[in-house]
């Protein structure tokens, strides 16, 4: 697996027209790996009927409220989502 608990990651900003499990409100956002789970077949590929979908590690990523909502975020709120490995990249050190 590529990431460990505590790693800073950024979600992909891509906007595919197929079945995809990064919600719009979390795309391109910086977060932190909160948990590492087992590997599961990628939803995108399973939805397309792929008989051999890629099996990727699933991660829980935590996002600070102010990162998710640039304006008007409620205080002291953390968002979590489970995201497949190919949905994530290491966050830039500078960002």
């Amino acid at each position, binding site marked *: 697996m590529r990431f460990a608990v505590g790693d800073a990651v950024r979600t992909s900003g891509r906007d595919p027209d197929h079945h995809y499990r990064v919600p719009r409100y979390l795309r391109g956002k910086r977060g932190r790996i909160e948990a590492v789970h087992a590997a599961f077949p990628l939803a995108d590929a399973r939805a397309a009927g792929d008989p051999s979908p890629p099996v990727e590690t699933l991660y829980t990523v935590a996002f600070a409220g102010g990162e998710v909502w640039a304006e008007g975020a*409620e205080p002291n*709120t953390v968002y979590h989502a*489970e995201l497949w490995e190919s949905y994530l990249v290491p966050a830039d050190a500078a960002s």
Partner: protein
Amino acid sequence: MSDHEHDHMEHDHPHDHGSPAVVMTARVNALIGALESRGIVQDAEVTAVLERFLAAAGPSNGARIVARAWADPAYRGLLLDDANAAIAQLGLDMSHWAPVSLRVVENTQRAHNIVVCTLCSCYPIALLGPAPQWYKSEAYRSRVVREPRAVLHEFGITVPDDREVRVWDSTAELRYLVLPQRPPHSDDWDEARLMQAVTRDALIGVAL
């Protein structure tokens, strides 16, 4: 609804006019009939699946899990660390039509948890039974990730700013159960009484 609007609404439906329930009943029956005539399913199988599901799944399963966690600190630890193993000890599982995994998140003085599936309606259905309609609604799913504290307030929970709100969006193969805080003055309650203090809404995070 006027007759004209009713006609217009039924334009795309191939069956005779009727209430939505009448129309849908006819369409569902027609589909199952078509599947039966092709040997794909039997109506009796559909009934059996429904009955088995309803017999196994319901909020009392969640109440048992929570009451055990309140009564037994070791069980609570296991539940938070490996929920699937913990519920297996109670003879429960997340058997489903796809591999899903349970995670339990704990309410504490420091944090309050709330669960949603913004992308559809993922819910620990095999444990708790069908999700309430409001959980599946666009209104809840859209707002609870934008203003969770305001939504909690509408459900009767005021979370002070110095207490963290943790929102869990079930975007993949995990399903969540919130472990509510044990009621005050309940030290001498047995598990049966503790179970009565657990509500389905508390397991989602919209009640205490």
